[in-house]
């Protein structure tokens, strides 16, 4: 296998491979990665970090709310209040992501052993 020969490791594919490729596109931004002192890149990198953490917390909290909702532990009023708060947070996240030019797949969490949290 030479680095210059086309490699094909797709064993089975269906539907639209374009969509799969789309999920992985962001990897092309990885080069060069290590020695990157460009302040704009660093700032966007930081924004991505911050938004990823906020997104993680948002999802965890939302999930908690869903569990309590399923368990019937919330009054209608609480449901509405919680739901509205999450709606607002979600909306704000969309705005922030747009401002920094980030897609959902950019907020990619590698949680290691906690990988299944989301």
């Amino acid at each position, binding site marked *: 296998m030479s680095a210059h020969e086309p490699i*094909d490791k*797709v064993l089975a594919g269906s539907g639209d*491979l374009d969509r799969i490729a789309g999920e992985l*596109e962001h990897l092309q931004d990885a080069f060069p*990665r290590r020695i990157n002192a460009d302040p704009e890149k660093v700032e966007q990198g930081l924004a991505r*970090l911050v938004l990823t953490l*906020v997104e993680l*917390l948002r999802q965890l909290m939302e999930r908690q709310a869903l569990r309590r909702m399923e368990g019937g532990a919330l009054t209608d009023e609480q449901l509405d209040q919680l739901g509205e708060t999450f709606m607002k947070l979600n909306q704000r996240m969309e705005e922030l992501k747009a401002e920094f030019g980030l897609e959902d797949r950019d907020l990619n969490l590698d949680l290691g052993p906690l990988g299944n949290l989301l």
Partner: protein
Amino acid sequence: MSSDLRPDLRQQVTLLELVDRVLNKGVVLSGDITLSVADVDLVYIGLRVLLSSVATLEEQGMPVAIGDALR
């Protein structure tokens, strides 16, 4: 829509999957703690740059707390 008819697409997916594995998976042998969150490697960014970036965000009036974001 058979993917057999798009060898270039298969190669693209292969390449991207390969890059994903080499850069993000594999055993991390480095003794440093490498936080791989959002592809941002904190060990390389360094604490000082991190702090100055936070200051910049705050100057620009960006909310940096969930509470701020809800107002």
